[in-house]
């Protein structure tokens, strides 16, 4: 979900669609799973709800969320960690497999 929010401000349904797209359709979240996870992200200070609705929003009733500064730093750190793992894996594998 943090990855889905790196793209900018999104409402709940768009976050779900982003998670599905980024996981290749493997992760399919139900409504309560989505909002329960969003609540945890907000409680942990990784995401926040926008006080105002975006001007070009398709539905004024929707609540929009975005990453906080901490959330962005956590995403960047996780991306670095995964990139490091990829680098190590590629260098360890035989040429042609990596």
């Amino acid at each position, binding site marked *: 979900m943090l990855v889905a929010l790196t793209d900018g401000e999104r409402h*709940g*349904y768009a976050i*779900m669609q982003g998670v599905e797209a980024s996981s290749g359709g493997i992760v*399919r*979240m*139900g*409504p*309560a*799973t*989505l*909002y*329960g996870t969003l*609540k945890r992200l907000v409680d942990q200070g990784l995401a926040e709800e926008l006080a105002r609705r975006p001007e070009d929003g398709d539905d004024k*009733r*929707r*609540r929009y969320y975005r990453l906080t500064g901490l959330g962005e730093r956590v995403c960047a750190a996780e991306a670095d960690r995964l990139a490091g793992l990829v680098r190590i894996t590629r260098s360890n594998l035989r040429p042609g497999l990596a």
Partner: protein
Amino acid sequence: MTGPHPLYRSLVRLYPSAFRREYGEDLVAHYADLVADRGAQAARTRTALDLAITIPRYHLEHVMTDQHSTIVLSLVIGLFAAGGLASLMTGEGPGGILFAVAIVLAVAQRSTLSRALRVPNSNLRRRRLQTAAVLGAIFATSYVVYVATIGDTWTNRETVLVTIGTLAMFGAVGFLIAGLLTRHSPDHRIASTAG
């Protein structure tokens, strides 16, 4: 909560009240989007699994919060202590063992209990004092009935009254102390000042 998708709306009521208040309408709107986007059958399939997993999970998470687990712990300790006292008074049952269990629990979990008492929470304070008042009323009622109806022989009715009265008395004292020791939250003080 009325409107479209009444079945899902009614199922949303099964979530803990805090979660429902915060996200209830979002859940229904999300379900409506799912139906419109993927079709009713796909929405039902996805949501059924979601409900089956998240309803018990969120209730469990709600119960396992510090405040709630402390209330449960306090009640268990109070029940063991009251049961022990009632047992000793009536000469029936393992009163000493029940008392010992209450003491062991209180000592073993003293850090949890003391941490909960330090949490500033006006709602918790009010709830504890209200609970103490209710338990106090139950104790007073059972005492009055006991005095008014006691006869020459000890019957099951007296045993029940003494047990209820003792449990209520210990509970009332426990909740009264806990309520008085629970601090007002800063938000509450600000609101009181503003009001």
